[in-house]
């Protein structure tokens, strides 16, 4: 089976623009959750988010792109660019259809859509931008990256909320296994605007706390919802052989295992299938549970969902059987971008030999029996599991390894 390796990554997160800044801030445990600045949140029941600050689109993109893109797409284009540069892939030297794009999104360009709907309502249809025809769309990041970077190979978009960040990378792995030399994949998600915000609030899972230190506390006895955020990460995924052929000698890691499952309906008596997703991902990686060095948990921050995840982790790894961390306590949940960012952080954990902390969680629920990493912890990590759960019942689990797996 073709081995798929991550040769490049680009991070755009509340914790930092660029991999280096994100990692440094994450290891310092500096949370980026605060009162919303993108709009006045006063009228809403929740006022906190993990926002990206200091992003100036004109520093990175041509003026031509700005009128036709949502902020999420602008961030995506920059992340894709950074990932390609990190991988040092020369797209022009590949066959015409040698490289494609798969991204995930949960809402599309909401902020752009909000602005245009506002024009429609206040001024009339002739005032709506022609670019609204695609700028809001789930697939817009894939499309714009494809056009800008000249990636004409197999491409697509996945819409499975938080799980999408992993699902997109898995889809890219399939394309690589089908013979596509390289793929850009991952997710940058979330557009803070009033319309997107009321959609979040309607889901009923957002924390109403106004204290940034107490709002998002996954696995804590005081868990009472989550804080949304924007950002994510994009990667370059290549067949190991193709990477070697073009002269690459090092990479961030290998996508060794993956599985996705779907939960039964909430009113069903049947249990969540999350445990099965984790077990199938381990089996796909041909790795035993005790070979996993750290787990990046989904950490929904809702007691019911936290319990399901803790039960699954305990069932697979045993009580306190593996270090578990939720660095997204520093960024909030970024939709599909959250799982992609977790994957980036997991790869950095293997490189630097340090597990980033779960911040603000001071009283983990004892019966979960999780070895929750609340301070940076040195470790030799060769295999990391990333778990992601998307609103609506999507479960995804991915194993990344440092070395080429056997077999």
């Amino acid at each position, binding site marked *: 089976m073709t081995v798929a390796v991550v040769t490049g990554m680009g991070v755009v997160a509340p914790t930092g623009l660029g991999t280096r800044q994100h990692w440094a801030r994450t290891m310092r445990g500096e949370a980026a959750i605060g009162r919303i600045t993108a709009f006045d949140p006063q009228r809403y029941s929740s006022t906190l988010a993990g926002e990206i600050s200091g992003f100036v689109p004109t520093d990175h993109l*041509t*003026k*031509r792109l*700005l*009128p036709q893109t949502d902020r999420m797409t602008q961030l995506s284009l920059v992340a894709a660019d950074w990932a390609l540069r990190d991988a040092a892939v020369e797209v022009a030297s590949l066959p015409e259809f040698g490289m494609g794009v798969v991204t995930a999104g949960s809402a599309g360009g909401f902020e752009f859509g909000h602005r245009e709907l506002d024009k429609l309502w206040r001024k009339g249809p*002739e005032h709506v931008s*022609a670019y609204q025809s695609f700028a809001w769309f789930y697939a817009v990041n894939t499309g714009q990256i494809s056009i800008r970077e000249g990636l004409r190979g197999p491409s697509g978009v996945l819409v499975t909320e938080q799980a999408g960040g992993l699902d997109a990378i898995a889809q890219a792995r399939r394309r690589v296994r089908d013979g596509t030399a390289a793929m850009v994949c991952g997710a940058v998600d979330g557009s803070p605007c009033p319309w997107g915000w009321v959609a979040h609030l309607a889901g009923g899972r957002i924390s109403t706390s106004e204290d940034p230190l107490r709002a998002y506390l996954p696995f804590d006895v005081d868990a009472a919802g989550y804080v949304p955020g924007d950002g994510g990460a994009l990667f370059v995924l290549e067949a190991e052989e193709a990477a070697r052929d073009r002269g690459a000698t090092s990479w961030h890691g290998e996508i060794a295992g993956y599985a996705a499952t779907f939960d039964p309906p909430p009113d069903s008596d049947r249990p969540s299938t999350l445990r099965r997703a984790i077990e199938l991902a381990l089996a796909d990686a041909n790795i035993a549970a005790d070979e996993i060095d750290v787990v990046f948990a989904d950490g929904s921050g809702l007691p019911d969902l936290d319990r399901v995840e803790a039960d699954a982790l305990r069932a697979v790894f045993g009580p306190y059987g593996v270090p578990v961390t939720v660095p997204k306590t520093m960024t909030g949940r970024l939709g599909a971008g959250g799982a992609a960012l977790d994957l980036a952080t997991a790869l950095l954990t293997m490189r630097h030999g340090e597990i980033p902390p779960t911040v603000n969680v001071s009283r983990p629920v004892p019966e979960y029996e999780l070895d929750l990493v609340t301070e940076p912890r040195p470790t030799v990590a060769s295999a990391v599991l990333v778990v992601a759960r998307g609103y609506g019942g999507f479960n995804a689990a991915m194993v990344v390894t440092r070395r080429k797996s056997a077999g």
Partner: protein
Amino acid sequence: MSELRLTDLVTILRECAGEDETSNLDGDILDAEFGELGYDSIAMLETASRIQIRYGVVLSDEEVAEATSPRVLLHLVNRSLAETA
């Protein structure tokens, strides 16, 4: 407004579709192809929509597609303006 001039059109083009760093809208572009200037069909629909809002001239999608250069587009718009004046 009685007439759409090239400078007005350039302002509109910049507003609705940005400016490509490689193309120079300040030059003699009357007979340049919009495609060469970097304006695709959606950018032209957006341009037509702004012209409609500001000058009250409604161009059909076919007319927009036929207006491949600033000269043709200005002619179409100004002819319409003259007819309604």
